[in-house]
């Protein structure tokens, strides 16, 4: 059966199990769009290519499937780069398909030509330029294989227009064909190393689990939870790891790092054993590296060998899929250490961490009568009203940190946030993607007034496809996190962080066909949020919050976790 390149692409996507495609058409990909109506794929037309990638990314994070986006050549492709880099930093499985000028024109500075393969080389797991239609099916299959296997990540496939138009017999490559001699990620852990870990836990007095986004992406939360409870070990997580351990469990310490809890950071600094799983000792987590966890033996489980020994020296390195490693460790504990009483050995330590939690809980000074709404209160209310049963996306900055601190995430894949790259404008399109994956769930983007304006145009997308995403803007009129740094470390020189001219977000929502609410008083927060959540269409809730509220605790950049600024 002879098919055109465009037909082959869509057939491959169908066979890869792709249900939804986030895209934006253009001349170079018009042949794909011409075929699209004849395929069962659902296409979501976004309003900006960056939105397409973030939406595909949000879809992937919420569902665990590969997200797919389709954009045209040149500016379409370059607009996608921020989204691709975001997915790369957070190891999100994504296939980005870009159009390219016809092969005879490549390199001629043709209209809407850009070397997107060259541009995205440092921010993709791998990328391809398909020059021959006969390579197309194999390339697409490999792209999906690479995106979802090993350490997941974005893969870009660049498709010249003439390749999309050329006919060739369609052959679906089998599993054997997609294998590459140069790509063999290790997924099974070394059993002897795991035995060592089991022994270390047995001998440890003050052990801590430090979980990262890898636990979420490997679907290893159940094993982590089982192990923590059986070993009676407190758990802390990175921003990316939130939700991998239930926040209402007494062993939960909260997030660690720059805006982590006092208990988590103290526990790390005082621990004698840290089991890091799917986390990479990011500088936002470790603080001053030389003073990080001075007494602890470090176990590091990661599928990516480059993450191990990159920032800290590790005593027991384990290169493996976190899921396999934790499941195997669980099996060792379950079968070989049945009699060992971890609870009584670790109980004094757990009690100690609980005391720290009571001593300095995550807190804020509530608003007095007549004072502006406290942003933390809004997040607390969202948690209370949803009982944690919602998918929460955030933008980047104070809104992101308050969400991480005050929303008790219970389950993995319910918190979508740009951790590694810190991309403002990520949350709203990501929420659109998550809502596509789970049409019946409540999806909320907690935003700042600065970051929501970076991809606000996607309101049209949400309205168009009737995706009832709720945007709650913690509107302080500032680029809050930068203003906080200016206040604390730059003598209050609020240069370029005051958002003086703001749109009327309520009217803006209405202009797009969404609903808009404004809240200025603390006592109205609950009522309005309830109404917003019950509204069956996209909603903006513009909450005017205390302009100079800060995120605490805070470890200033370059300081150790032991040097926290508390409220």
């Amino acid at each position: 059966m002879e098919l055109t390149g465009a037909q082959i692409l869509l057939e491959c996507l169908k066979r890869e199990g792709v249900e939804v495609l986030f895209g934006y058409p253009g001349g170079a990909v018009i042949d794909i769009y011409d075929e699209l109506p004849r395929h069962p794929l659902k296409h979501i037309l976004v309003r900006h290519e960056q939105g397409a990638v973030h939406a595909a990314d949000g879809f992937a994070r919420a569902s665990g499937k590969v997200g797919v986006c389709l954009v045209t050549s040149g500016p379409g492709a370059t607009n996608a780069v921020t989204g691709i880099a975001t997915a790369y930093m957070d190891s999100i499985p994504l296939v980005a398909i870009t159009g390219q000028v016809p092969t005879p024109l490549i390199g001629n500075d043709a209209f809407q030509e850009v070397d997107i393969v060259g541009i995205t080389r440092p921010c993709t797991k791998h990328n391809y330029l398909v020059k021959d239609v006969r390579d197309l099916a194999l390339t697409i299959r490999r792209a999906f294989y690479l995106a979802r296997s090993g350490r997941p990540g974005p893969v870009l496939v660049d498709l010249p227009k003439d390749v999309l138009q050329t006919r060739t017999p369609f052959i679906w490559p089998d599993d054997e064909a997609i294998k590459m001699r140069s790509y063999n990620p290790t997924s099974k852990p070394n059993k002897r190393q795991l035995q060592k870990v089991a022994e270390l836990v047995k001998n440890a007095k003050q052990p801590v689990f430090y979980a990262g986004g890898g636990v979420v992406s490997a679907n290893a939360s159940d094993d982590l939870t089982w192990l923590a409870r059986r070993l009676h070990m407190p758990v802390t997580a990175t921003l990316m790891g939130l939700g991998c351990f239930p926040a209402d469990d007494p062993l939960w310490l909260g997030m660690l790092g720059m805006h982590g809890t006092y208990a988590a950071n103290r526990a790390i600094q005082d621990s004698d054993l840290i089991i890091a799983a799917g986390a990479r000792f990011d500088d936002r987590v470790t603080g001053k590296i030389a003073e990080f966890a001075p007494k602890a033996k470090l176990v590091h489980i990661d599928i990516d060998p480059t993450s191990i020994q990159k920032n800290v020296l590790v005593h027991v390195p384990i290169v493996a899929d976190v899921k396999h490693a934790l499941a195997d460790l669980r099996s060792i504990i379950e079968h070989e250490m049945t009699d060992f009483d971890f609870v009584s050995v670790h109980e004094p330590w757990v009690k100690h961490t609980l005391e720290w939690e009571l001593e300095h809980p995550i807190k804020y000074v509530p608003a007095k009568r007549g004072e502006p709404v406290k942003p933390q209160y809004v997040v607390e209310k969202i948690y209370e009203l949803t009982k944690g049963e919602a998918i929460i996306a955030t933008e980047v900055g104070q809104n992101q940190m308050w969400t991480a601190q005050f929303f008790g995430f219970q389950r993995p894949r319910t918190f979508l946030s740009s951790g590694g790259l810190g991309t403002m404008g990520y949350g709203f399109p990501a929420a659109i993607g998550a809502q596509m994956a789970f049409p019946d769930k409540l999806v909320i983007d907690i935003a700042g007034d600065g970051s929501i304006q970076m991809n606000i145009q996607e309101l049209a997308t949400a309205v168009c496809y009737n995706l009832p995403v709720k945007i709650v803007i913690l509107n302080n009129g500032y680029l809050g996190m930068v203003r906080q740094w200016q206040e604390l470390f730059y003598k209050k020189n609020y240069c370029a962080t005051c958002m003086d001219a703001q749109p009327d977000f309520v009217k803006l929502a209405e202009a797009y066909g969404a609903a808009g609410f404004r809240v200025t008083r603390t006592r109205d927060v609950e009522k309005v949020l309830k109404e917003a959540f019950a509204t069956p269409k996209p909603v903006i809730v513009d909450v005017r919050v205390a302009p100079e509220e800060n995120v605490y605790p805070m470890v200033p950049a370059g300081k150790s976790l032991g040097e926290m600024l508390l409220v």
Partner: protein
Amino acid sequence: MNDKRHVLSILVENEPGVLSRVAGLFSGRGFNIESLNVGPTLDKGVSVMTITTVGDDVIIEQIVKQLRKLVMTIKVVDLTEHKSVEREMVLIKVNAEDSRRAEILRIVDIFRCKVVDVSPDELTVEATGDQGKIKAIINMLTRFGVKEIARTGTVALKRSLQD
């Protein structure tokens, strides 16, 4: 810092963009390349790159891991950890007036190099050897006035017999 020179031998799939991927990895992560050499192997689908770089053990470990992580990399060997043979070739165009020509030729002979091009006032010398020898011949010829120089960078292979 115990910075040491390392010679890395990297087998990669012979595909477009591989060189730029490897070179980009070095520049993007702030690693330094001292020399880079690439050519095909007997297997047409595979190329071998020889890269010399400088760094302490931690940096080199990170470089090797990052190279292995590239999807197109088949194998990375740090030849510094093994006994290996290293060679580099250099072409040196040197001033050679009649009065000094004999002396230059004597040096060329001592170093077992070859003269590959001659003109009335210049000689082009081809030298092959390890880093030390290349450095020495360049030093020796510099005083005559070296006009141009082209070096291949190191190529290296592990010795067959290792203790």
